């Protein structure tokens, strides 16, 4: 069964460093998303991406964040200068056009020290 894959599963970084979280969405999906879940809190939307551009972003997704689909298969989230409060689980999701079901990867746990 097709699935969304995310790497790495755990990323440890120093505050102020850049990190890139990687995702391979399901191959025939057209919409791509990043969500995050801070420990003990809700899963919250960061950004959606369609047709090679950002469709919507939340207030969390400030200038320190960027997304890219560098080729036909990968979808990346970059945090330019990490802060302690960026520590969270980051989930990538994708969906086909026409249906509302989003399929999630297993997540990347980002720990900023």
């Amino acid at each position, binding site marked *: 069964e097709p699935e969304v894959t995310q790497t790495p599963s755990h990323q440890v970084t120093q505050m102020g460093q850049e990190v890139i979280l990687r995702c391979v969405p399901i191959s025939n999906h057209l919409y791509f*998303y990043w969500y995050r879940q801070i420990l003990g809190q*809700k899963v919250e939307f960061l950004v959606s991406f369609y047709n090679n551009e950002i469709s919507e972003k939340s207030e969390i997704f400030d200038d320190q964040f960027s997304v890219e689909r560098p080729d036909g298969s990968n979808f990346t989230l970059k945090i330019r200068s990490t802060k302690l409060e960026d520590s969270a689980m980051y989930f990538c999701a994708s969906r086909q056009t026409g249906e*509302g*079901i989003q*399929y*999630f990867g297993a997540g990347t746990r980002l720990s900023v020290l």
Partner: protein
Amino acid sequence: DQQVKQNSPSLSVQEGRISILNCDYTNSMFDYFLWYKKYPAEGPTFLISISSIKDKNEDGRFTVFLNKSAKHLSLHIVPSQPGDSAVYFCATTRGGGAQKLVFGQGTRLTINP
């Protein structure tokens, strides 16, 4: 952001009995509703969904009920099995565009043998 609320952080049910998980929403523009199940160290897994034109959708042991006038949905699992022990999230979205998901806080369901 309290657009989607799951008021029970946890629920404990005897194996074989019915589990009922509840979710309330505030925005009447939401028109598609989903339930996700999440195990530790995994991403949310889609379980069942319902569109606002329906009031019930059934898939095996899982049934989702939607009460639009009360802005309330519920997930019924019957009979409950030990493997159902997980955190359950309700999520909603508006039709059209990139359709970001708005999640509730989650309910931890424990099925006791």
